[in-house]
């Protein structure tokens, strides 16, 4: 695999910004768990606690104009791409001020202005669309890339195979980001895929370039994502980003995880990407605590904003069916 350009070194100030962003996502999702358990939030909610470095590393590597499709586990991607915590929290509360104006909810977060073309509640549902968007960018000769986040469970569904095949065949400007957290809901990787511990083999089947990266290392994710995005942007073809990560919590909020051993949960906790980045930066408690306090403040403000948001009128349900 040829490198398209030298690694972009990140300075410590940038990494501190990444840490702040990851902390914001963590605290945001913890608050979501709390408010869900308090009975305040309707719907199905899935947090990506443990996977923050993937969201931040990939989204920070994206350029203005790049677009993406996400999954049912989309809070982190959405925040990391710049949607305001207020708009996101308001969406989870079903308010007009929400990023999907109350029509979507946690599993259907959109923010077109920031390139978010939708979190998808159907596994693999967004993969054909990023292939088509990547084709459109190529046909129009636009320096843009369409990117999809998805999990290891997605690698078993038809849209995954059809999309990777088509993308590679047509050399679309697309990046496929596989967040391999080794769980498809409650089913462990070894029970759902013969290549669960090396998803790059899936890309190999389509002759697609792949990059393997440690998803708990935000610096590495950023560099790999940057490389993948620039390769796709150049029109040379799509890239499969094989990201190894850990889901520290259950499939959904409230999931008792009866299927998961204590050891496995501990292993995930031992790979906390926030701890890792903090250690990498050698942050003193004081600095870390001040970052954390800022994250809490932003989340508290978002909660207040959302709780005081505007409910849609019931008959608004009949709007936006057609353009």
């Amino acid at each position, binding site marked *: 695999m040829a490198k398209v350009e030298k690694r972009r070194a990140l300075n410590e100030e940038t990494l501190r910004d990444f840490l702040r962003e990851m902390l914001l996502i963590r605290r945001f999702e913890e608050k979501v768990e709390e408010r869900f358990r308090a009975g305040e939030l309707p719907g199905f909610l899935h947090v990506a606690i443990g996977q923050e470095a993937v969201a931040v590393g990939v989204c920070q590597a994206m350029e203005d104009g790049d*677009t993406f499709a996400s999954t049912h586990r989309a809070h982190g991607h959405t925040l990391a791409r710049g949607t305001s915590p207020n708009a996101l929290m308001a969406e989870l509360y079903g308010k007009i001020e*929400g990023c*999907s*104006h*109350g*029509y*979507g909810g946690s599993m*259907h977060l*959109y*923010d*077109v202005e920031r390139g978010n*073309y*939708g979190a*998808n509640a*159907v596994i693999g*549902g*967004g*993969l*054909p*669309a*990023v*292939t*088509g*968007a*990547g*084709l*459109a*960018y190529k*046909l*129009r000769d636009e320096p843009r890339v*369409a990117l999809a986040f998805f999990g290891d469970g997605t690698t078993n569904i*038809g*849209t995954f195979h*059809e*999309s990777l*095949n*088509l993308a590679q*065949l*047509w050399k679309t400007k697309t990046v496929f980001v596989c967040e391999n957290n080794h769980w498809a809901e409650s089913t462990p990787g070894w029970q759902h895929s013969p290549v669960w511990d090396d998803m790059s083999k899936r890309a190999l089947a389509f002759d697609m370039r792949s990059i393997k990266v440690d998803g708990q290392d935000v610096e590495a994710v950023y560099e790999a994502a940057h490389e993948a995005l620039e390769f796709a942007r150049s029109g040379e073809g799509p890239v499969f980003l094989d990201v190894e990560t850990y889901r520290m919590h259950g499939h959904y909020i409230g999931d008792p995880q009866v299927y998961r051993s204590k050891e496995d949960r501990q292993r995930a906790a031992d790979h906390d990407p926030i701890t890792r980045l903090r250690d990498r930066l050698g942050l003193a408690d004081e600095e870390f605590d001040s970052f954390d306090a800022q994250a809490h403040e932003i989340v508290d403000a978002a909660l207040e904003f959302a709780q005081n948001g505007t409910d849609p009128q019931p008959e608004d349900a009949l*709007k*936006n*069916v*057609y*353009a």
Partner: protein
Amino acid sequence: MPEITYREAVRDALAGAMRKDEDVFIMGEDIAEMGGSMGVTQGLLDEFGPERVRNTPISEMAIVGAGIGAAMAGMRPVVEIMYEDFLTLSLEQIVNQAAKHRYMSGGQIKVPLTIRTQGGAGWSPGAQHAQQLEAWLVHIPGLKVAYPSTAEDVRGLLWTSIYDDNPVIFFEHRLLYPVKGDVPDELEPIPLGKARTIREGTDVTVIAIGPLVHRSIEAAERAAEEGISVEVIDPRTLQPLDEAALVESVKKTNRVVVAHEAVTRMGFGAEVAAVLQYQAFDYLDAPIERVGARFAPLAFAPVMEQFVVPDADDVLAAIRRTVGK
């Protein structure tokens, strides 16, 4: 007025839109060199090249889904699903994605995608190559559904579908491709949601779609010989549906037959009957008659296929029942 085939009319609309607009392109299985399984896209590769006339792998989910993505990115793709039976393979993308992106995003997204497909009995293709599934798609909010029956309508409606900002499922019928019809010199767009009265009459209204329009015209001519005056209306688009035109006709004739090639049960005719009994209840002088396929998959043997699928005789029999003959 020139006379062209239904097939040429589809091609004319595609070529016209592609000439006018770089954002229009087509993709599907075998549509390039081969010109599609029905020859509809013949010649388009030569004129527009392989970037805009794209052969795809046999991947119905990706064909539709890539169309969705290109549409969301601002283009106006037209994708072809070779046989409408294969729509079943792409339904996830049509039903969960194309139909719902605008809604789920609270109005942020447009999906100006046209999905052309064709089907129908008549060639003994058997149970997996001849179904009529239009009713499935009408049931999904967010989709528009067109099913034109003449050269003029297919040309004008396809143009409008391409330029509509919503996903449109565009049904064509295999037996109609060689049927000729007059068309205007210049392509005239036809709005979605506007029915066409094909034949005026006073005793019975036949509301028919697709090939049943032609079979109903034949039935109406034979009914006229028996002194029954039959009006034939083609809704042309099933969603949106021109309810007002149908209701108005029924208020005049007081009797209704709805006719399509799809299976009668839960077919589009069931919805039309429900609309009419509610909006024109006091005007109805007879039960609404439904004509459609019998409740069986399509058999291979021609005699069995013909038995299952409705023809002009079936429409005529239904007309006679409504007037008590």
